[in-house]
């Protein structure tokens, strides 16, 4: 689907996310973790950690492992690729990744 046809939702202002951290947004009842990385790069994945069932991934530490940009779950430290949602340690625990864009100072996520 072309980006303009995605169901974009404004979740917050860029300034509301401390660089190098994430926040959790509620979009259509879904918990979405939205991360702001250095260089104004944004990522969004499910916030619920499949291993624990807790809504916590936005509170994990972000970083890189090799070429991949990842977040580590704060509960069991399993890593999720921020571009794909893939769980590096246990692929069966992978989550969804969502398109994100910044418009002006708004951060938008597309959940479909």
């Amino acid at each position: 689907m072309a980006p303009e046809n995605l169901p974009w939702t404004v979740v917050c202002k860029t300034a509301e996310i401390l660089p190098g951290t994430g926040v959790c947004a509620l979009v259509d009842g879904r918990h979405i973790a939205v991360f702001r990385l250095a260089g104004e790069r944004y990522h969004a994945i499910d916030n619920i950690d499949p291993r624990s069932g807790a809504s916590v991934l936005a509170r994990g530490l972000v970083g890189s492992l090799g070429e991949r940009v990842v977040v580590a779950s704060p509960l069991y430290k399993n890593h999720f690729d921020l571009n794909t949602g893939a769980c590096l340690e246990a692929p069966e625990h992978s989550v969804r990744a969502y398109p994100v864009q910044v418009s002006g100072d708004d951060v938008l996520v597309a959940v479909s």
Partner: protein
Amino acid sequence: MQIPARPAIEVMREAPVRGRAEPNMKIIVIGHGMVGHKFLEELQQRQLADVEVTVLGEEARMAYDRVHLSEFFAGKSAADLALADDGFFAASGFRIRLKSRAVAIDRRRKTVTTLAGETLAYDKLVLATGSYPYVPAIKGNDRRHCFVYRTIEDLEAMQASGKLSRSGVVIGGGLLGLECAKALRDLGLETHVVEFAPRLMAVQVDDDGGRILRSKIEALGVRVHTSRSTQEIRDGATARHRLVFDDGFHLETDMIVFSAGIRPRDELARENALAVGPRGGIAIDDRCLTSDPDIYAIGECAAWREQMFGLVAPGYEMARVVARQLAGESGATFAGADMSTKLKLMGVDVASIGDAQGKTPGCRSFRYADECKQVYKKIVVSADGKRLLGAVLVGNADEYGTLLQMTLNGIALPADPEFLVLPAGDGKGKPGLGVDALPDSAQICSCNNVSKGDICQAVAAGATSIGEIKACTKAGATCGGCVPLVTQVMKAEMARLGLTVNNHLCEHFPYSRQELFHLIRVGEIRSFDDLLARHGKGLGCDICKPTAASIFASCWNEFVLKGELASLQDSNDYFLGNIQKDGTYSVVPRMPGGEVTPDGLIAVGQVAKKYGLYTKVTGGQRVDLFGARVEQLPLIWEELIAAGFESGHAYGKSLRTVKSCVGSTWCRYGVDDSVGLAVELENRYKGLRAPHKIKFGVSGCTRECAEAQGKDIGIIATERGWNLYVCGNGGMKPRHAELIASDLDKAGLIRLIDRFLMFYVRTADRLQRTSTWRESLEGGLDYLKDVLIGDSLGIAGELEAQMQHVVDTYQCEWKTAVSDPAVRQRFRSFINSEQPDQRIVFVRERGQIRPARAEERALAAADPLTA
């Protein structure tokens, strides 16, 4: 002696082990000491089918480490010294009978009878009865408060007597006698050693070495009396006993310990017509067989070629030989043992190698003595000057490993052998042996018979740290004397294989935590971006970010949620609470020393009630409140702060609690104010960020109700001041803390704790508790003492200053967080909604909340994932 009323059983028949049929070999081991247990371990490793193994132990305990017996007085418990436990017997299927003394062997019917009257059948019998302490036939040697030094029960009796004594005498100035003198000194007694020979450790060292050793021991406050023969012990005038010497002089003391050598426990052999050696000991051949082809003898009870071995290594070797024999390796033989030893007596290094006394015909020696530093070194070389025959080292035994290997492997001496023992000078470097020169067969660890080849194999198989080498080869795991050499061999082999010792923190920083600490401190780096730009690569990760944050906090102690620092913190530090399995947090207000007023307790209770939190009293003497959602945290803190509480740092890798007993204020046994000290210490060190959490305990007397010896820092009050113990741990791998200094006043105590903590903070690895840090420190406790008390690195002042900075810049993180709107607005479940996280669901149990399990949650609320 009383014989329990129990019917004699003709031949014990027990259910076959693990459902096996009748075993085809029954093995009985008499004696469960170090060597007896080593035999069992060796046997277990070989996994023999159809054997039934029963061990009879005379003592009430399973085998324990007699080599390190004196550590009992430095804080180790019987459990710490244990070598075996029920798990070993469960796993091996071997049976053990404790307090079961063998009194007779019927060699014709092949049975052993115990004191209780049981008769057990054997096919093969292994005698590992050990030795007993020799007590010279002196009149009065059986008086009360006279002891021997062999079993844990002996030590307990000494300890009890020590409490009623001011002074103690050890009769015997040999290796064990000096160990024993250390024990008496640790008990706080005025300590004397009385030796018949003209010098201490007459077997291992020569006259010159003995002289230096004596002056070093005397400098430690132990009085040494050589060439003294005790004739009689009788009532003293100023103390309990008077020792009367043959020259008419006398010495008075409250307590006496005999340590005048050991004698083999060979009575079972003598009574059953097994051959014994001319100087005693059960005679064995190269296969460790006695004169009965079904009976073996191993360890200190055995005499091989008329020689007895009072060291553990030859006993272990005999144990291996017998296990191999029983496994069918008929070629396994005992070929004698090297009696070289290296030990540290009261902090004094003493080593003796091979022909230390220079008895080989035609041999010549090189000696070096430094009476200022009190170091003595001698090497004995062959008549042709080509081979090293022996050595004596006193005061510094750094060359032990090299010299031992040169002696054992017949390695050609360098042209100027004197440089082997001379201090390294400007002109000429010390000729290193270089472990490359050693053959693969060179035995590196004699206790566990580990060769250079074994270590190299372990390295090739992936072991690249001394801990891993110890675990898989057992090299260095018994007496530890060979650890420096094992390390050298390991490093050389790793270099040969092109491996590097990789202690890098993570892929982003090619440095260890200790190196990173140094870089941050010296480079005055205060931000992660700066650190990454100067020393790292990539974006960082969940390993290096919190590590850097912790180091920043230890060095500069800025508010942990200030600006960029916040993005480096683990969820716990970011939300200043402990994350729980459902994503809620727990909140622990600080209660220094476990002291809390009724009003304080009520306030905590009211907060818990208001927010519906689950409440539990912690092991660290405070209260933990569970089930707070992120948006509730600032509200909860505000109320706790208003009631006078501060953050308890339960979430941080930092000082947790200082646990205390009630102390002299209330307790009728207390000798000092443990609560007062605990409160003061907790307030001093609160907020200190470290490689891992730190726990303290302060006990007001030696009853130790605060369990201080199970803490990173333990303090116990004595009549003369505070005793400081360090590096203890409970948890997964319990470790008793070790006494590092005694009878300190408060200022001295705090100074030493400052130094200790900051040294740990600087040098430990990430997530390394003080106990594992201590285990990995080369040089161990003595090294720690050198650095922290002797200031051998010259950093004591710096460590104290750094700690003072942390103390002076303390702030309550909750207070700072709630008063900073930018920080406070981060505490919300959703960035775009005020509603709470509906996935957090509690159910009630025992009158309080607990997180709902998945199936309970599905019932309670629609699951947004499946909705």
